[in-house]
Structures are given as structure tokens and as C-alpha cells.
């Protein structure tokens, strides 16, 4: 069975601090995909990134970076120099090869960035 665990329920930081959101996944499949989505207060989830299981390269996009480590089954997300607009709930998700669009979400981490 597949499972995604986000142990941090809520994180509060002050603007300009760096913050890392943790994600641990479980799957027996050798081919799988990992995702991060952002859910702002308006409610719609917004796609941030996809990673496949064969690509362990870390990725950086502006203030966002992702660290994928198969050895620890983790796919962590770091926001550098956080801003108030980063306040949202962030979800990590997993899908597997036989239905790559069927996302299994974690319970989410609520990030609050205070000015």
C-alpha cells in the first residue's frame, strides 16, 4: 500500500526565515512519482513540482527547493527567505505507475508566515 506522512501539522515562522517541510512516503513500487501542492486560503490546490523515482537530483526554483532521498524515502521542501504570501497548507503526494494521475496525499502542513 502507498502512504504519505507529513508529521508537521503546523509551522509558524517570521518573514525571511527559511523553513523546511518534511515528507516521508511508503510504496513497494519501484517506479513512482512524488509531488508537492500548495493550498492557499482560497481553497484550490496548486501544483508545485513533480519528481519521478529515478531522478534524485535536487531541484531549485526561485526561493523553493526540494530534496529527494530514496534512502530515507523522503521528499522535503524548503522555502528560503519566507514571505507572508507563502502562508498556506502544503501537501506532499505520491502516485504509482499503473495510475500516475491518482494522487495519494499526505495530511498537509499548515505554514504561517508572520510579518
Amino acid at each position: 500500500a502507498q502512504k504519505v506522512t507529513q508529521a508537521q501539522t503546523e509551522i509558524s515562522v517570521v518573514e525571511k526565515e527559511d523553513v523546511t517541510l518534511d515528507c516521508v512516503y511508503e510504496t513497494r513500487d519501484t517506479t513512482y512519482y512524488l509531488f508537492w501542492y500548495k493550498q492557499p486560503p482560497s481553497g484550490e490546490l496548486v501544483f508545485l513540482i513533480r519528481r519521478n523515482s529515478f531522478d534524485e537530483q535536487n531541484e531549485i526554483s526561485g526561493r523553493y527547493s526540494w530534496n529527494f532521498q530514496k534512502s530515507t524515502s523522503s521528499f522535503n521542501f524548503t522555502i528560503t527567505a519566507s514571505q507572508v504570501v507563502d502562508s498556506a497548507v502544503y501537501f506532499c503526494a505520491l502516485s504509482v505507475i499503473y495510475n500516475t494521475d491518482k494522487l495519494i496525499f499526505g495530511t498537509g502542513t499548515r505554514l504561517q508566515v508572520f510579518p
Partner: protein
Amino acid sequence: EAGVAQSPRYKIIEKRQSVAFWCNPISGHATLYWYQQILGQGPKLLIQFQNNGVVDDSQLPKDRFSAERLKGVDSTLKIQPAKLEDSAVYLCASSSGGHGTGELFFGEGSRLTVL
């Protein structure tokens, strides 16, 4: 480009009543999803359509939930009769599908409260 449209945004009903939610996906998107998001949890896939056919409805409580996508465009999700535990946000999403990018485009959701 217009996003995924959902209605109504909010609905309050009493248990044992029925309710229907409507979703219009992004134009041209072949795949449509209904997710249920209970407060404090991650979204859970209820049903996935590819055009007007069902790809996955393994987590849809079929004794009370039904969904259709008759012309392969918009979709309706119905609950009859509703139970207290159906209180949740019902998220519709769409994707161009077919090759499993995992990049789903979500609507703002329909929040259901069952009293």
C-alpha cells in the same frame, strides 16, 4: 484560460437529504477527478473519469455517492442520503491526462456541511 469551475461553493443540508455538486473542467482536459477533503486531512480521490468513462472509483461509497460525466465535459457528484461524516470540501480537478504528469488543476471546492 478559465480554470476549473465548481458550484455551489457552500451547501448546508440535514442528514438524509440529498445534494449535488457540479464541475466544469478546463476546456480540452480529458481527465476529471472528484476528491473529498475532510477537515484536517489530505484530499482523497473519490472517482476519476477519462472522457466519459470511469478509470477509478474504488474509494467512492457507491451506496450513497454517484457521479457522472455524460458528454465527457462537465460532471455532477451526488450524495443521497447524506450522512454527518460526509461533511467535507469536495474538490474537482482536471488534467490533460493520458500520460500521467500528475499536474492536476483544481477548482476552489464545494464545502458541504451536514447537520
